[in-house]
């Protein structure tokens, strides 16, 4: 069976600070992420696809894959809503 790999592209100009503060210079919006949120966003910004992020989080933290992916998809839709993602972000 062919696996479906979902790539989420973070806009290049999005600034993510050490503390998890995210700034979108196109809209002037800023957001505060918790440690895990910031870690996930950094992985996405570095080009990791969703499967790679999921594998890392499930392997590192005490969380079921299905539970994580449900929250992960919510997180992605939130990023889309806040215009953090590139327009054609899904491949």
């Amino acid at each position, binding site marked *: 069976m062919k696996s479906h790999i979902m790539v989420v592209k973070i806009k290049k*100009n999005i*600034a993510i600070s050490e503390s998890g503060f995210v*700034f979108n*210079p*196109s*809209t*002037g919006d800023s957001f505060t992420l918790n440690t895990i949120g910031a870690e996930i966003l950094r992985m996405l910004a570095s080009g990791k696809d969703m499967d790679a992020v999921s594998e890392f989080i499930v392997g590192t933290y005490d969380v079921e894959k299905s539970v994580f992916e449900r929250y992960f998809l919510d997180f992605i839709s939130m990023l889309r809503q806040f215009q953090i993602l590139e327009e054609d972000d899904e491949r």
Partner: protein
Amino acid sequence: MTKDRLTVLVSGLNNIDSPGPGIPVIRGLRDSQLIEPRIIGLAYDNLEPGAYMHQLVDKTYKMPYPSDGSDAVMQRIRYIQNIEHADVLIPNFDAELFAFMKSEPVLRSLGIKTFLPTLRQFEERHKANLPDFGEKYDVRVPFSKAYTNFNQLKNLKDDFQFPIVVKGKFYDAFIAKDQIQAEIYFQKIAAKWGLPVVIQEFVYGTEVNVVALGDGKGTTVGAVPMRKQYITDKGKAWGGITLDDSKMLELTYKIIRQTQWRGGMELELIKDAKDDLYLIEINPRLPAWVYLAVGAGQNLPEALVLMAMGKDVSPFKNYEVGKMFIRYSWDMICDLTEFEKIATKGEL
């Protein structure tokens, strides 16, 4: 480097909850590495805070209201010029711009230089003329119409769908959700600013602004886009942040190139859900938040004064993105004698 000693006349000292641009413009000039300014304030009211800010304003003169006519205004300017020998005048109120633009040759003969838009530029960007402006320069604008008579409002539904924006010719804008609100705001604005009152289609989206400076030959000397982060009940920015938005800058360059804009300007824009920009207003002067541009690396008041003095100014190439301003209020303690001076002698 030796700084140029220049005497600059500046109005808009009303640094209140809905502030004029005078004090931010003066702060830019005080920050200049090229100019050592002597600032002469022009005030219309005894309680304009700038008149009492002696660290920023060296001397203040009361002015007659622009509604008294150009002659009264120029008579006062002549009196001031005899004492102060000013080099440059920066008017910061929309309502006084017309009188000063009309009197530019007289000002020049007195030795006072300005860097203002031409009368044509000033007229064609009027709120009432915005649809024509949009068509002429291929700029997206919301539909709007000027109303000179209260009875004309009966036919509002023929042209608009609620909500609509009811705007004064110089200042003030209210969002009316129905006919009754539209009529109330019309009367309120007409009483304060006169006619026409402009009714504008409401565009859903985020309000964004650009402060810019044109050299009068089509070149943008500087431009900084900003989004208001919090808006007061008067619709003014409480805080704002500079943006990295090439679309906003391109639109600004296009407008300045096509109109050959001369002087400071503020573009008020709405960015809709598709990221399309609608021009809702052009203010023909530097706005009250211009000090954000100075803080972000573009000292536009300094550049404006230098261009008024006939100097070549290289266009600014960049600015700091994510620079913020937060407006605050500050109670100055003043002696009654100061108030007495400006109230009785018209000078402080």
